[in-house]
């Protein structure tokens, strides 16, 4: 009896496994509330529509990504990556080109579409601050973010070499937004030197929230969705959208992904108007599909970078992809000095 039962379980498991192998794909993202929303708003309706199960994996790890592709042993089908990595990975031949239809291509914001990567969502670096930290005027501009006298205390910035902090330093130093690129690295680091001893670095979005919420850093340059989440939890924080710096995450298919066909379908679905609108409503991160904004209600729209488009500045990801390594070398050298 036990043996028969065991055999039955084994057979059932075998069937389940082969079904799994035929009809499922793996989606990898950064974890946390963002991936929860990606699962709820993209993966679950995608499975309902196509019958293809979506297994969630993560967090995204570029070292793992490269190792998988180079060893020909890829276990991820669709990966959420930062924009500059997407451009760089395409140059290095790590990606499968997308096969979106002309109609799908036309519906996506061209800022967030390349032959090998389609936008996942986009977001802004904003000035987040505690509303009870400063007496009188509250911080508003990037100059304020770099003004230790007017707004004393630690300030938190993104730890990794990536678009955002250097641009903020140059803008605070008076560089005109249309003159940002090519970046004047000497000038940017000189400006950052003026506040270096007051900088605390955040490596993950959760860390930036922790620094703001605990008051360790009463002000910082952070992602808009993270401040919004803190506000919703009732923390005494606010954000200024003045000169908010926008960039996006991208969805890519690693070269040699196990189920490229399913991956192509998933990206087409996730970047379509409806799922993008739903994700924006849940996270405060902006949709990259031009048809999504009309689907949003007023409150959800007001929380998005789109509502602050007049004051935003696009970070130049092509520039970053081309200069990623040289900037990184200087960035980490400066950080450890």
């Amino acid at each position, binding site marked *: 009896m036990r043996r028969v039962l065991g055999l039955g379980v084994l057979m059932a498991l075998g069937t389940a496994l082969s079904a799994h192998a035929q009809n499922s794909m793996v989606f990898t993202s950064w974890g946390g509330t963002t991936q929860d929303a990606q699962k709820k708003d993209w993966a679950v309706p995608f499975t309902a529509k196509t019958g293809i199960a979506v297994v969630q994996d993560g967090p995204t790890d570029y*070292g793992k990504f490269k190792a998988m592709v180079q060893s020909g042993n890829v276990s991820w089908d669709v990966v959420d990556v930062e924009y500059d990595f997407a451009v760089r990975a395409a140059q290095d031949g790590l990606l499968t080109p997308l096969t979106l239809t002309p109609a799908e291509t036309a519906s996506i914001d061209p800022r967030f579409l390349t032959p090998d990567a389609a936008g996942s969502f986009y977001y802004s670096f904003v000035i987040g601050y505690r509303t009870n930290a400063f007496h009188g005027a509250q911080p508003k501009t990037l100059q304020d973010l770099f003004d230790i006298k007017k707004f004393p205390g630690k300030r938190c910035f993104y730890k990794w070499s990536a678009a955002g902090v250097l641009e903020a330093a140059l803008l605070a130093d008076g560089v005109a937004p249309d003159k940002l690129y090519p970046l004047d690295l000497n000038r940017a680091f000189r400006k950052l030197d003026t506040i270096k001893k007051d900088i605390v*670095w955040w*490596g993950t979005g959760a860390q930036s929230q922790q620094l703001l919420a605990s008051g*360790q850093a009463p002000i910082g340059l952070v992602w808009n969705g993270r401040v919004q989440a803190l506000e919703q939890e009732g923390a005494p924080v606010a954000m200024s959208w003045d000169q908010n710096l926008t960039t996006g995450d991208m969805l890519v298919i690693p070269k040699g992904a196990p189920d490229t066909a399913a991956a192509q379908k998933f990206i087409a679905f996730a970047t379509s108007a409806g799922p993008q609108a739903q994700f924006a409503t849940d996270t405060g991160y902006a949709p990259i599909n031009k048809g999504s904004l009309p689907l949003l209600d007023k409150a959800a729209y007001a929380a998005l970078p789109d509502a602050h488009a007049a004051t935003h500045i696009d970070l130049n990801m092509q520039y970053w992809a081309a200069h990623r390594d040289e900037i*990184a*070398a200087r960035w980490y050298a400066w950080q450890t000095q």
Partner: protein
Amino acid sequence: MADAIAVKGVRAAQAAPPPPAPRRLRNGFAPAVPGLAFLLLCFMLPVLALLLRSLTQPQWGLQNYAALLATSTYANVLFNTFAVAGLVTGISALLGLPLAWFLAVAPRFWSQLVFGIVILSMWTNLLARTYAWMVLLQDTGIINNFLIWTGIIQNPLPLFGTMAGVVIGMVYIMLPFMVLSLRGPLAALDASLFQAASLCGASRVQAFTQVFLPLLAPGLAAGGLIIFVMSLGYYITPSLLGGAQDMMLAELIAQLVQTLLNWGLAGAASFLLLVLTLSLYAVQIRYFSPRRGKEG
């Protein structure tokens, strides 16, 4: 206490004959094959592959090693690594010795209680412990808030995001290793030696430096080496409690692999770490191995 020491007789153990040589086992190599094969496949081969990468990427040559040793960034990282490992080892020894001494001489109940606390801290999840330190060390954390409340300091001490924070967090993690390493030598310590020392006219300080410390040297060296080597490759605590200026070697390797995708340089850094660790281990075997000490 002095009476207790006085009634103890002279131990004969020092003069014990060496144990008889164990009988040779035939074919002793075979049972080790599975373990050796595992190590060869899962450790030696990847290490060699990594070494090869450090010599071949982007092209053949020693350029990765040259970059590692010549660039001031990496020199800073190496300095930080040694500074933190050295400080952690030294402070662990200073704190661990009295603690181990207490464990050896305290009444059984207290000794077991304290030993339990030491061990319990080792069994707690490393991440949980490190996050707890984050809460304690922040500018708005309990330590700084308390010190400001008592009026001892006006402005918060820079404990979080600094090397001080890293050292505090790591000493806490490494201390049990020092206590455990000293426990054996302290238990074996013959208390009558001190009486002998004082009978011969040694002051307390002399008894400590010339009798006590030399006898504990193997334990101190073993504990110190374990801590120093573990600290050299430590990752979680420095990355959570340290600032960008205090980057250590393991963090640099992670950054090179995951963020910069510069695997040649990462391989060189890993190999450097491995060589440092192995040479320290060789030093221990050569100079501090107890067996050698007795033979010599």
